[in-house]
């Protein structure tokens, strides 16, 4: 089956006083109906990659390189009406903070029915009925009444559900989710994750789910790609990455994540800090924090090498594991 999303050597640079190299050569394929968890820390380029897929970066300051194909469309070549049709119809997006994603002066329901009418030739009454149906589908209680509620009038969990309804209003083939549960309480987070899982299976859409939380990624993803310094350092099936991480960064990330049963043990923190994106080292971006790094790591970024159904970007991948 040909992939729905095919990204090749994507680079994203932001101009300014210093040029920020936010994404430095990302290649990704996502099959129809697949859920990819994009895992990384702040500044790893995971959100920038996602926003690039929606072309949300300010055009004047952003330089793209490489290519992105989604459902046969060249995303970097789109402009004008074609880009507007692509956003929302082919590709929907949900964000971390729904209060910023919604327009505060229109009711939640009106914004959903507006999106439906923008992409489909239906009258207002039909669009409204569809919007109410969608709100019911995302488990907003008394949906008919909430149709007229403004974003500030409902709770955070309810706003997040309404944003999911908005993103799915035109049945996109690809859903981009940018940390949609990070700001929610654990009890609400699990409800939203279960809802997304259900909707994904029902609609058969592909999802790219960006998160910094391994536990959240495990709840929803089929495959995991780990990003660091604007590159993918490791990717593979969920269970493989979680039980047998091979890149030193992924290993460090797993070891430094607090989990039950670690009481009394000292945490294995990764020393140092993420790289400065305005002055990337010439070699592996993780080398300055890596216990296994040697002179060879400093020469050029290691390529992403396939090993069976997983990929790893570390020149020491074949060597036995050294404790960090």
């Amino acid at each position, binding site marked *: 089956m040909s992939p729905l999303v095919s990204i090749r050597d994507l680079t994203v640079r932001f101009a300014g006083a210093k040029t920020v190299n936010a994404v430095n050569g990302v290649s990704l394929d996502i099959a129809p109906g697949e859920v990819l968890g994009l895992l990384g820390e702040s500044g790893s380029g995971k959100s920038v990659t996602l926003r690039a897929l929606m072309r949300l970066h300010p055009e004047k300051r952003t330089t793209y390189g490489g290519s992105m194909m989604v459902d046969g469309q060249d995303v970097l070549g789109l402009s004008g009406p074609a880009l507007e049709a692509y956003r929302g119809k082919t590709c929907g997006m949900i964000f971390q903070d729904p209060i910023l994603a919604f327009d505060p002066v229109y009711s939640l329901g009106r914004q959903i029915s507006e999106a439906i009418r923008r992409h489909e030739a239906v009258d207002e009454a039909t669009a409204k009925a569809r919007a109410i149906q969608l709100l019911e589908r995302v488990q907003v209680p008394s949906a008919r009444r909430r149709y007229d509620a403004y974003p500030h009038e409902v709770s955070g969990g309810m706003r997040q559900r309404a944003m999911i309804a908005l993103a799915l209003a035109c049945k996109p083939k690809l859903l981009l989710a940018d940390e949609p549960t990070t700001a929610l309480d654990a009890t609400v987070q699990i409800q939203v994750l279960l809802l997304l899982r259900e909707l994904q299976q029902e609609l058969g859409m592909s999802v790219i789910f960006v998160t910094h939380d391994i536990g959240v990624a*495990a709840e929803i993803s089929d495959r995991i790609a780990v990003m660091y310094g604007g590159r993918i350092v490791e990717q593979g099936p969920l269970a493989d990455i979680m039980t047998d991480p091979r890149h030193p960064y992924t290993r460090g*990330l797993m070891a430094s994540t607090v989990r039950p049963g670690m009481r009394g043990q000292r945490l294995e923190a990764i020393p140092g800090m993420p790289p400065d994106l305005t002055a990337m080292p010439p070699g592996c971006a993780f080398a300055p924090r890596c216990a296994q790094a040697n002179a060879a790591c400093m020469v050029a970024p290691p390529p992403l090498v396939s090993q069976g159904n997983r990929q790893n970007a570390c020149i020491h991948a074949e060597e036995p594991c050294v404790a960090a």
Partner: protein
Amino acid sequence: MHTDIALPENVDRGGPAQPLLLVEGLRKHFPIAKGLFGRGGGAVHAVDGVSFRVEKHEILGVVGESGCGKSTTARLLSHLIDPDDGQIIFDGEGVGDPDGITVRELRRNLQMVFQDSFASLNPRMTIEDSVAFGLKVQGVSEAKALAAARDMLDKVGLEHGRFGGRYPHEVSGGQRQRVNIARALAVNPRLVILDEAVSALDKSVQAQVLNLLLDLKAEFDLTYMFISHDLNVVQYISDRVMVMYLGQVVEIGPVDSLYGNARHPYTRALLSAVPSLEPGVRTAASPLVGDPPNPVNPPPGCRFRERCPHAEAVCAAAMPELAAVGDGHFAACHMADPSSGHSAAAPEMPS
């Protein structure tokens, strides 16, 4: 550690058995002004009759959903806001009592670290000036305060020669949180309230700061109150854990007892809502439906009953009190009280 500067030495006045902090019936309601069209009115019951103690040298974890009153409790304890009612006793001395401890003296003994490392620092002050500021307020001379601040920056892993002269925006989030920790510890406190202090940090940096907090606790003989929504981190660091719901304490107990044998249905729901970190184990059903309720004019009886699968008539009639369910383990649930009349209030609880 501060023998060379003019701060009073910390004396254990109450003895080892006296809790460092004793809180009795703490209450804070925020009134809601009536709006233009007569809407609103009533009050947010942010903290509603909270009693607990913090033992010397322990770490008390505090968990709960947003709006449960955990941060308001912290702010009441450090007198950043004034309580409506209730008593705070610090090492045997009432805060604000005529023969007790003054608020200024309390604040030297009780320091806070907040979630937002950037908003907590004055952007126009260098890092070492920020750390020295509290000492100067407490009457230490400029030169001695600066020397102590530099010493403390070294202790939290920020070389003072490299970092001391920088401004908050010139360091990373993890480093800024170290500055906030240094500032809190500079005045030689006995109790530090960490209000979501590691929540905004990336996992790899969070682990560094957690290790640092445990090292500093041992070095300076500190007591922590650790407020967090991250139940894994709370389990890792705490000796005892307090669970709050809608402005009240619903369960409190030793960490192993509470995580292993939670007796309040809310605590059990909260614990099972945490993603498992096991790739094969996915959550099948959500333990709770709906959002945390609004703390405006809460209903009588048990505040959790509207989301509780075990709610019965008695839960609406009477508010459950904290009752012992184990060694040092208390829960406020009618099912934990054999005399309540709840049908499940047998000696053994259904699981």
